[in-house]
């Protein structure tokens, strides 16, 4: 790697000798804008095995959705550009495939659920038509058979009276039901990897609980791997096996879920966890990470988090911290991860 800041650290599945189902390796994505080049993703690596749930946690602009769109191959290029990196699915680098070959993978092997189901669904076609399209296009089924499949899927995601509702349009469904239809479309062809980009952010908590339960169930049934992109620490704690925390286009912490919540190893993760209101803090100030998220056009030198970091030392401003390996399963991109782990304030 030419970039010394990026450690091509891989997760244990790889070190055990079995290649992971999906591996993102040192991925860079940049956007040409009128103000200059926005480096949205700066060397992201993560890996995923069958049946596993990886939560990608980060706030807006951290690059979590752009990474997912790069995996799906749905980035608009230009303005987007992938200057380097690999996305290996079952060992093949997706970025080297032809557009035709990628279309074969997209939807069939890697599928995606979007945040806003209303704008992701086509308003002028019935939901049945849109689900059936998956079977017509990818499986070459006839109209009748495809509709029958669509009804079956709507049943599977528990839409009541699927047979009657198959001819309804997206606007006739509630937000939760629309998200179920999105999920039905994404699991239609039994994908190996499901990418869920903030699947419940637009929904109420009671509906969120229904959708997360549905996803977990579908995952159990088919041993699907799932990438859950979210900013909600609560949702992550509920479903994830492992977490990749992103900040400023980089993974800052990579760990099994229990470790992150018990002993965060990066000051950003630690700050996020501490800013959650807890019962015993009532009447006191919440812990707040000071400052603002970085501007992608004008990233701070060194560690992107350094202007907001309580552990900052001189070398944080000059040297980009590599992803230090803490144990076989954990890593943190902080020069002072030992101090953060021990809870010593910098």
């Amino acid at each position, binding site marked *: 790697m030419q970039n010394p800041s990026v450690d091509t650290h891989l997760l244990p599945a790889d070190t055990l000798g079995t290649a992971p189902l999906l591996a993102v390796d040192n991925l860079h994505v940049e956007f040409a804008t009128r103000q200059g080049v926005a480096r949205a993703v700066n060397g992201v690596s993560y890996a995923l095995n069958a049946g596993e749930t990886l939560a990608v946690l980060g*706030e*807006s602009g951290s690059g979590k959705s752009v990474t997912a769109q790069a995996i799906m191959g749905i980035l608009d290029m230009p303005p987007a550009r992938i200057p380097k990196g690999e996305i290996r699915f079952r060992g093949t680098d997706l970025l080297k495939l032809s557009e035709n070959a990628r279309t074969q993978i997209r939807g069939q092997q890697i599928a995606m659920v979007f945040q806003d189901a209303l704008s992701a669904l086509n308003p002028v076609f019935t939901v049945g038509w849109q689900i059936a399209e998956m079977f017509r296009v990818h499986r070459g089924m006839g109209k009748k058979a495809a509709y029958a499949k669509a009804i079956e899927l709507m049943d599977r995601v528990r839409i*009541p009276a699927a047979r009657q509702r198959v001819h309804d349009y997206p606007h006739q469904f*509630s*937000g*939760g*039901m629309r998200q179920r239809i999105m999920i039905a479309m994404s699991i239609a062809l039994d994908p190996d990897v499901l990418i869920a980009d903030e699947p419940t952010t637009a929904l*109420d*908590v*009671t*509906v*969120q*609980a*229904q959708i*997360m*339960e549905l996803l977990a169930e579908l995952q159990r049934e088919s041993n699907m791997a799932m990438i859950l992109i979210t*900013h*909600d*620490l*609560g*949702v*992550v*704690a*509920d479903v*994830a096996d492992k977490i990749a925390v992103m900040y400023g286009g980089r993974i800052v912490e990579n760990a099994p*879920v*229990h470790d992150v*919540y*018990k002993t965060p190893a990066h000051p*950003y993760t630690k*700050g*996020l*966890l501490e*800013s*959650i*209101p807890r*019962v015993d*803090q*009532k009447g006191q*100030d*919440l*812990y*707040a*990470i*000071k400052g*603002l*998220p970085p501007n992608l056009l004008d990233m701070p030198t060194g560690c992107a988090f350094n202007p*907001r970091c309580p552990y900052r030392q001189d070398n944080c401003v000059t040297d980009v911290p590599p992803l230090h390996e803490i144990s076989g399963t954990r890593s943190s991109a902080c020069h002072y991860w030992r101090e953060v782990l021990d809870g010593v304030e910098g």
Partner: protein
Amino acid sequence: MASKGEPVLEVRDLVKHFPLTQGIVVKRQVGAIKAVDGVSFDLHRGETLGIVGESGCGKSTLAKLLMALETPTSGTVRVAGKDLANAKGADLKRIRRNIQMVMQDPYTSLNPRMTVGDIVGEPFEIHSEVAPKGDRRKKVQELLDVVGLNPDHINRYPHQFSGGQRQRIGIARGLALQPEVIVCDEPVSALDVSIQAQVINLLERLQNEFDLAYIFIAHDLSVVRHISDRVAVMYLGKIVEIGRDTEIYDRPTHPYTQALLSAVPVPDPEGRENRERIILQGDPPSPANPPSGCRFRTRCWKAQEICAEEEPLLQIRPGADHPSACHFAEVHDVVHAS
């Protein structure tokens, strides 16, 4: 916080029905969306009342009614003893000074063509008695300082600020007329997680400094718990349970409150396999045609015949210490039980 003395905000049997009409030339009313349907509560100085509920439960209509942006179908809103709902003209203007609002979306609630100084100073144009003309600029700068913005940025435009800073501008505008009550409608939900805590802290500091009373509408239950003295849970236009924060969160008695609390993901993976989860089936019914009797009965696991026939009143039930609108109210600590 002490709830003593006269309440600054008294809401009694507040109702707002939006008519549903049919026909183009001759409009006939064929029904009504019962957005807010008989809501009553008091709010005292320096107190925060949190209002939680799913979308469509009437939280935001309630906020608009409190601000006199909508005329209620019936019921009264009294701000510092004066009736807001039926006031007109100069009276209305005077009462409105006492109740201000912070909006949800800091991107659309600030006019992009006005400078920050104009936005924060605009309330003074309407209520010129608060700040005499020559004094206004200084006043605006003071306000910017109070909410933690640089007073020198008075001539900048909203797009030059980040989301969190814009929300501070919105808060400064709400504070300009020195109101006694501020209605915060989802003030942090549009902000990044790391910025939310900053704004919550600011709201709390301002409350202590100016003895403000807040109506805090939000869907994030942990934030509501942190900031609220009392919490009201709304379902389909009605308050189904109201009480002090500990009463609602630790000893909820209404099944809807219990389901709502259990649906909130806990940010701690420890013991997640054994956590109790009440998953409600379906979506809330339409407020145009709410179920008879108890409105929650169609999704409730405790529902019996009486629930369809008789509407449960919001009152203190045996074995509970705060009002709940359920025939079978029963304390059940969903968050800590596992």
